[in-house]
C-alpha cells in the first residue's frame, strides 16, 4: 500500500550550537551554546518537514520504512538503529507525536490513511534529523550510581543470596533499555533540562530495592535535590511511552515513599 511519511529534517549541528526540539534553542545557528541561565532565545530548532511517498506493507516496521527511504530515496536521511527488535533501545523516536521504538511500531499500528510523522525525541539536543545527543540523558543516569554497591566491609564466605521474593521487589526495573522514550516524554524535562528524569529514577529503583545493595541513601541524596523525584508531577507520559512496560510512575512513587520514610 502507498504510505506518506513526513520526516523532520534537521541539518547537522555542531556540539555547542545544537538546538533542542520542543524547547528553546540558540538563536544564532553557529553561535555559542546558551545555558539555561542565559538570555531568552528566539527560535525553535532549525529544520523543515520533508514528505516522502512509498510502498509499504501493513506489517512493515517503521524502521523498515526508514531503511527503505534511506536506501532508495534519500541517502542523507539520518537515524539510529542497531538490533532492530526492541532490545537495544537505539531507535526511539517520536512517531505520530508519541515516543516509540521504530523497530516495534508497525505501519498498521498507526491507523490507515494517515500520514506517518517522524520527529526526533523532544527535550534533548538534536544532532541531525532523528538523532539526538544522549549525553545529558546519560549524565542523569550516572548521577544515581547505577551499579550494585554491596557491603564489602568483610570478605564474603558465601554467595550473596537473594530470595525470589526479594528479587521480585525490583524485577520490573531491571528491564530498562535506556532508550530515552520515558525521559523525553516528560513535560517537566521539556522545560527543565536539568531534571533527573524517569529513566534515572527507574535505574536508581533497580538498585535501591535490591537486597544486596547498601547505597540507598547515597542515591536518595542524588534524587532529593531540586531536580529530583519531587519534580515529578505524575503526568504518566513516561509509563505510556516505555516500550518495556515498566510502570514508571508507580516506580517513582515507590521511591518517593521510601525517601519520605527515610526522612522521618
Amino acid at each position, binding site marked *: 500500500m502507498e504510505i506518506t511519511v513526513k520526516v523532520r529534517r*534537521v*541539518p547537522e549541528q555542531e556540539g555547542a550550537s545544537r538546538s533542542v526540539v*520542543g524547547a*528553546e534553542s540558540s538563536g544564532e545557528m553557529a553561535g555559542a551554546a546558551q545555558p539555561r541561565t542565559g538570555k531568552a532565545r528566539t527560535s*525553535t530548532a532549525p529544520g523543515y*518537514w*520533508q514528505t516522502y511517498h512509498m510502498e509499504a506493507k501493513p506489517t512493515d516496521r517503521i524502521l523498515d520504512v526508514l531503511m527503505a527511504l534511506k536506501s532508495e530515496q534519500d541517502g542523507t536521511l539520518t537515524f539510529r538503529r542497531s538490533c532492530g527488535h526492541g532490545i537495544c533501545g537505539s531507535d526511539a523516536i517520536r512517531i505520530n507525536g508519541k515516543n516509540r521504538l521504530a523497530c516495534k511500531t508497525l505501519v498498521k499500528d498507526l491507523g490507515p490513511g494517515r500520514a506517518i510523522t517522524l520527529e526526533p525525541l523532544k527535550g534533548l539536543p538534536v544532532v541531525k534529523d532523528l538523532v539526538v545527543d544522549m549525553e545529558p540523558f546519560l549524565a542523569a543516569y550516572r548521577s544515581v550510581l547505577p551499579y550494585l554497591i554491596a557491603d564489602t566491609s568483610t570478605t564474603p564466605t558465601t554467595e550473596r543470596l537473594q530470595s525470589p521474593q526479594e528479587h521480585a521487589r525490583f524485577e520490573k526495573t531491571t528491564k530498562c533499555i535506556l532508550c530515552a522514550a520515558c525521559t523525553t516524554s516528560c513535560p517537566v524535562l521539556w522545560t527543565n533540562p536539568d531534571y533527573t528524569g524517569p529513566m534515572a529514577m527507574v535505574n536508581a529503583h533497580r538498585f535501591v530495592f535490591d537486597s544486596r545493595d547498601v547505597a540507598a541513601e547515597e542515591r536518595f541524596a542524588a534524587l532529593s535535590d531540586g531536580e529530583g523525584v519531587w519534580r515529578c508531577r*505524575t503526568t504518566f*507520559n513516561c509509563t505510556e511511552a516505555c516500550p518495556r512496560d515498566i510502570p514508571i510512575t508507580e516506580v517513582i512513587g515507590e521511591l518517593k515513599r521510601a525517601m519520605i520514610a527515610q526522612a522521618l
Partner: protein
Amino acid sequence: MKDAETRGGDPTTPAKTTTLSKLGLGGTLYRGSWGQWSWLLHRITGAAVFIFLLLHILDVATIRISPGAFNAVMGIYRHPVMGLGEAVLVAAVVLHALNGVRIIIVDAWSQGAKYHKHLLVGVVVVFLILMAGFLPVHLGNTFGWR
C-alpha cells in the same frame, strides 16, 4: 523512484518564534494521554484560581473603607455575567481539588499509579455530581429564580 517534496523553506531559515516556544513548549504537540491533559488542566485551574484569589482578598479588604463601599463592591458580584464567571470559578476550584485528591491517592496508595485512569473517571463523576448540586442553586440566585 525519488519522490520527495520539501516544505517549509530551506534549512537555514529558522522557524518563526512563537509564544509556545518561548514557554519551552515549541515544536509539535506531544500526543500524551489522560495523565498529561489532567496535569495541564490542574496547572491551568490552579493558576487561574490563584489570580482570582489575589483580587478577591483585595475586594474583601474594601470592608475596611465603609459598609457602603463594601456593599457596592459586592454589588458587582451580583451582575449576571459575574454570576456566570463565579460558576466557572467554582468549576475550576472543584476540578483542581478533586484532581488534587487523585494526586494524593496516586502518591500515597501503592496501587494508586496502577489505577490512575479509574481515579480520573472518579474525579469527573464526582465533579459532575457536585456541579449538578451547585449550579441550580447558584444560577437560581444569579438570575433571581430563587
